[in-house]
């Protein structure tokens, strides 16, 4: 057994717990999970069946944790996992799975398949069978502070730009501020309008807030590829920053995975509960709305629909805030079929969009989203995840659908009642 493989098996042995054992023993091979997975439904290829994606994990479980499995391994009735097989599974685990979680919602025996994929990724990563790009992204996050190589000067450049755009100050390292705002690299690089929107909203709501120079990055690709040690380092940076600045709440940006990493996995990675709250920006905005601190004017005239990012909604639990916010600025908001926690993935999360090998299957899988849109025929699509935005735009472009995609925070900010004349459109 190669060193990489034995490390992988050891890691997988460590992550297997009672739930995983229960799931593997309950699976009756009914195939319903495939019908919930857009990679299968749009391609028709059974290899994308979710429970099949975790077969290496099942083999390790059977051969290490069941008496019968161990006996069968001893007499050669079952074969141990090989490095080559792990290599074959890379495509299934990373190219055609965004960990969207729909499979976990439909399994009749209750299997949480996405949980198993997440755990399998730990073994895949450590044996070197994760896509280079994602491994590199994690390395960059640990060494530089961002998966995409965004360093503080780049953040400051954007801050400068936003201060020009809004005429407002973007606080940095303000101790005692109520909110510490995190950004995802995607927003810093591709969507500066996000921070611009936050700046204006915070001003109107009258809340104190700050960026943190040592912890501006929210994305945690350690979680994405499944390397908990590195994921821990990344979360700790944020925890240290938040505790140093003594903030009450850390705001996770629109990026879906940043939220799940910080809100749900973070405390388990560092081994203790947080001393501060973590909220998604949509939760914060909804709170402001409920408290009457968010004043908007005018309504979008177009027919709008909302794409629920998997990691925020189904996997994150932020379900109603975006609907309340949409209704603040739209009288013509229509839900897609399979809305809210049932929504279909954009197809690009979990490292898939940055994976060149996955481009073909990703665009095939996008047909599911296209079908949803063809049904509801919106004039504009709103979402709240930077990666979803790009993946959606690329998919729409590929299928020649003329449909603008905007971010919800940005749309709310465009409707803010502000004192300066002619500062935003109605």
């Amino acid at each position, binding site marked *: 057994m190669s060193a990489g493989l034995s490390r992988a098996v050891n890691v997988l042995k460590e992550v297997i717990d009672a*739930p995983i054992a229960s799931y593997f023993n309950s699976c009756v091979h009914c195939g319903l999970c495939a019908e919930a997975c857009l990679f299968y439904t749009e391609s028709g290829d059974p290899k994308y069946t979710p429970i099949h994606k975790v077969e290496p994990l099942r083999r390790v479980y059977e051969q290490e944790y069941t008496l019968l499995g161990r006996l069968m391994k001893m007499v050669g009735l079952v074969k141990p996992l090989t490095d080559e097989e792990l290599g074959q599974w890379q495509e299934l685990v990373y190219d055609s799975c965004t960990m969207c979680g729909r499979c976990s919602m439909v399994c009749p025996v209750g299997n949480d398949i996405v949980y198993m994929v997440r755990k399998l990724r730990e073994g895949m990563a450590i044996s070197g069978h994760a896509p280079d790009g994602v491994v590199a992204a994690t390395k960059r996050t640990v060494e530089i502070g961002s998966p995409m190589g965004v360093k503080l000067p780049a953040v400051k450049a954007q801050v400068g730009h936003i201060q020009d755009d809004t005429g407002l100050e973007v606080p940095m390292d303000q101790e005692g501020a109520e909110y510490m705002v995190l950004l995802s690299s995607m927003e810093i690089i591709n969507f500066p309008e996000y921070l611009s929107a936050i700046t204006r909203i915070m001003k109107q709501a009258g809340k104190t807030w700050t960026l943190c120079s040592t912890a501006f990055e929210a994305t945690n690709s350690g979680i994405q590829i499944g390397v908990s040690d590195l994921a821990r380092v990344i979360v700790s940076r944020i925890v240290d920053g938040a505790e140093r600045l003594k903030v009450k709440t850390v705001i996770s940006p629109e990026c879906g995975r940043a939220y799940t990493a910080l809100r749900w996995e*973070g405390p388990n990675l560092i081994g203790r509960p947080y001393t501060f709250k973590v909220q998604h920006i949509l939760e914060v905005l909804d709170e402001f709305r409920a408290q009457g601190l968010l004043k908007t004017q005018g309504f979008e005239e177009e027919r709008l629909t909302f794409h629920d990012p998997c990691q925020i909604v189904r996997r994150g639990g932020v379900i109603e805030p975006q609907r309340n916010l949409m209704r603040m600025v739209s009288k013509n908001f229509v839900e897609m079929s399979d809305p809210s*926690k049932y929504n279909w993935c954009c197809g690009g999360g979990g490292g898939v969009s940055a994976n060149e090998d996955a481009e073909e299957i990703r665009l095939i899988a996008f047909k599911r989203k296209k079908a949803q849109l063809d049904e509801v025929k919106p004039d504009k699509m709103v979402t709240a995840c930077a990666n979803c935005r790009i993946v959606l735009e690329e998919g729409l472009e590929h299928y020649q659908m003329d449909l603008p995609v905007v971010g919800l925070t940005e749309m709310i900010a465009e409707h803010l009642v502000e004192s300066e004349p002619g500062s935003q459109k109605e």
Partner: protein
Amino acid sequence: MDAALFLNWVRGTGLQIAVFVFLLGTVWRLFEIYSLGRKPDLAERRHVAGASGWHTILRRSVPIPGMMQRSGMTYIAGYTFHIGLGVVVFLFAPHIKLIQGLVGLSWPALPSQFVDLVAVVTLAAMLVVLADRIMKPVKRFLSTFEDWFTWAVTFLPVLTGYFAARHLLLPYTLMFSLHILSVELLLIVLPFTKLIHVFTVWPSRWFNGDASARKGVPI
């Protein structure tokens, strides 16, 4: 071998072995599974009405929107044979008598003609399930020897029981013995195959539901 001797054996020693293996096997397997434990979750939990592992145990029996259109046969045939099995095993007078003899509990039975009908429907549903497994690409792709074997091991007791009750195919004593033998086979293999889902489906649904519930998502 004499049919009566055979029947005596399956009803006596055979049954004892089967029940013993079934009980010991089940206890062992459940221990093997659940002793692995689960790490505590340190993230602050959300509390949303209707979201809990217990809710999911029940709610998971209902397909989510869109799934019936995608795979209706799985649900319909699946539910039919599961419910049918339940009726045939637990609401047939001779079975209730047997259970009463073993553990002292009893309850009212359904009329035997009705159980008869349910048995036929169950057999039909199981054949549909088998055909579906052969014909649907995903099911075929996933299926291993164990899937075909456990299908047979579940089908045979219903088939032989039906034949025995109707005095079909073979002389009654022999048919009846085969029925009991097939049940014994089912009991022996249950803990060591996917048939153990009889027990594990409830905690599985609970774990899954709980994991989502703590995030505030009722599933």
